[in-house]
Every structure is written in C-alpha cells, then in structure tokens.
C-alpha cells in the first residue's frame, strides 16, 4: 500500500519532527497543514492522501473538529487518523475515540510508539 501522509500541526517544530520520523520509518510521501482548516483544504485537493496525523490544539479548526469533519464525509469513513497530542486526560481520549480517531499518541512520542501505532492502524485497514 503506497502511503501519502497529511501531517497537521500548528507548530512548525512538530511538523518537522513528525516528518523526520516518518522519513526515518521509510515514508517519504507527505504534505503538511498548519491547522485543521488547512488540512481539510489539502485533503479535498489531494486524493492521494490516505493517512492523517494530526495535533489536537490548533487555531481555526482543532484536531478534534478536523476528525469530526473528516468522518462526516462518507468517503473518509475509513481514512486512518492518528491523533498526536499532549492531551492525556481520560475525558480527552474518550472524546477523541467518540470522534473516531484511529489511534492516539501522546507527545512527546518515541519513534517506536509512532511506528507501532501506524502499523496497528495499517494492519486494521488492510
């Protein structure tokens, strides 16, 4: 399966770190978005995007709102969405699950955790 990632984070630092991590895992094909709104625009414009990695706290449209917006469209019902966030309280995780994120990673993440979660999601998609 050829993967094209959409990396969504308002922090330029985090976008670069996630992008570097993906490259380290062998994934070179990716686009970046600075917030949820930008992500929706890029997702609509690029049919090749088949994996979303998003932060939660962002201006314009949060990661949670982005997830809800994506899931509201039937054609993205199975699009993998990995939430990567500092938010680790129970209520947040439940809310994210209810919004149908595919998996959840806490910042700061380790490359092992990122790989593990991506692999889990891909295993479920296939």
């Amino acid at each position, binding site marked *: 399966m050829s993967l094209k990632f959409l990396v969504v*984070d*308002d*922090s*330029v*630092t*985090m976008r*670069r*770190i996630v992008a*570097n*991590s993906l490259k*380290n895992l062998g994934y070179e094909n990716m686009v970046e978005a600075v917030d949820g709104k930008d992500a929706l625009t890029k997702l609509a414009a690029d049919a090749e995007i088949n994996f979303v990695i998003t932060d*939660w*706290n*962002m*201006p314009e449209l*949060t990661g949670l709102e982005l997830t809800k917006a994506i899931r509201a469209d039937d054609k993205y019902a199975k699009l993998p969405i990995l939430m990567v*966030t*500092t*938010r*680790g*309280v*129970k209520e947040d*995780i*439940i809310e994210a*699950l209810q919004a149908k994120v*595919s*998996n*959840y*990673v*806490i*910042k*700061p*993440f*380790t*490359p*092992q*955790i990122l790989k593990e979660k991506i692999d*889990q*999601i891909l295993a*479920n998609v296939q």
Partner: protein
Amino acid sequence: MKNLNMSQLFDKLNDVKVLFQYGQKVVPVLQSLVDFMQETVPLLENINHSIADSTAKIPKASDQINNVTNATELATTEILDLVDAISNNVYSIEKKLETVNSAEAKKAELVEKLKAAISGNSEALRLLDEYTEIDSTKKNIDEISQLFPKIKEDSYNITLSLQVQDITSQQLAAVDHLIESVQDKLASLIQDIDDTQIEEFNSAVSAGSGIQAPEGATFDPNASYNMNDNRQDAVDAVINMEKASQAEIDKLFS
C-alpha cells in the same frame, strides 16, 4: 396619678442617663474607629495604586512570554536546520565512501592480478606484499562507516528531543492565559473600587472562568515534557478505562 407620671418621668430620665453613660463609652470607640479609617484610607489607596500599576504591567509580561515562545521556536528551527544539514552531509559522505570502497575493491583485484603477473620476481612480490600491508584505506573506511548509524541515531534523537519546544510553548501559552485571567480580575476589582480604567486588553478569558483553557485554545494547559513510555501506556489504559494488557488495549483499536 400624678405620682405615677413622675415615676415614669424618672424612669425615662434614667434611660437617658444610661444612654449618655453608654455614649460616653462608645464615643472613644467611634473616635478610634474614625482615626483608624483615616489611617487606613491612604493605605488602601496605596494598595489600589499598586494593584493598578501591577495590572498595567501585565501586558508587558504577556508580550515577553510571547517573545520567549517566538525565540525558542526560531532557535529550534535553526537547530533542526543544522541537524538536517548534518544528516545530509552524513548521507553525502556515505555515498562518497561507497565509491571509494568500490575503487578499493577494484584495487585489491588489480593487486591480485599483479601478484600473478610477477610471480617469478620475489623482490617485486615482497614489495607488493609490503604495500598491501601498509595500505589501511579499506580498514579505515570500514571503521568510519560503522560510525554513521550512531551519528544518524544521535541526530534523530536531537530532533525528537526538540519536541520540548512545542510542549514548553504550550506551557507558556497557559501561563500567559493565566496572567491575562489575573489581569482581568484585577482590572475588574480596581474598577469596582474607584472606577479606575485599566487599559483594555485582548483576553479570551471571560470573567469567572478561572484558569481553565478557553474553548478552542491552541494550547494544552496540562502539557508536560516527559519521555516516559509509561505515559503512553497510561493513556492506552485510560482508553480502556482500566489498567489493561497491551493485547486488550490493541483490541480496542481493532
């Protein structure tokens, strides 16, 4: 009837007398209360001015926090640029060493051919063996090549550690928000006391909202930098509402 009236009159006079006696006791207390108030008013005014002064300085503190965030983001970007440059250089060196390695392999082949060609000349063979022995290029290349994985791993770990910038910027945003909340409260307090107008400021905090992050905040007030895998395990466990085995957590996402 007349006696009764007189008796009532004396009772009333006694009441008045008691009142005066009580008044004599109360007047000094009232006087000290007035004195106390007179002394307290300037003190309260001082406190009020002091609060007003501190409140007026809060926007500057808020600006400074934003400056720190911007500066750390800039510095982090520079570090990331340098790490990328190091990684690119390592990649270039690796490629060049591969070329050198190929040349060395070819050279070794030629030496073997040369040995065969000069098999009758013992002096030439001795010199060739000596040359082969002192030629440590291949050995050095192998040793250098072994360093690359470590350099790459270290570079990547530097990158990962820079996640601290995103997390501290969220912490600073939370502090900034807290400061603005305090300013809000102080400004409203000062306004209540003497109608002093504190400079309007842009705050997403509504009165009475405490120190919680406002709706749609772009920061997490509870962000923390902790490179501990247990934290992710804890999150996974929370997802499952209880301490669960990895298999059970994984099942939740399947």
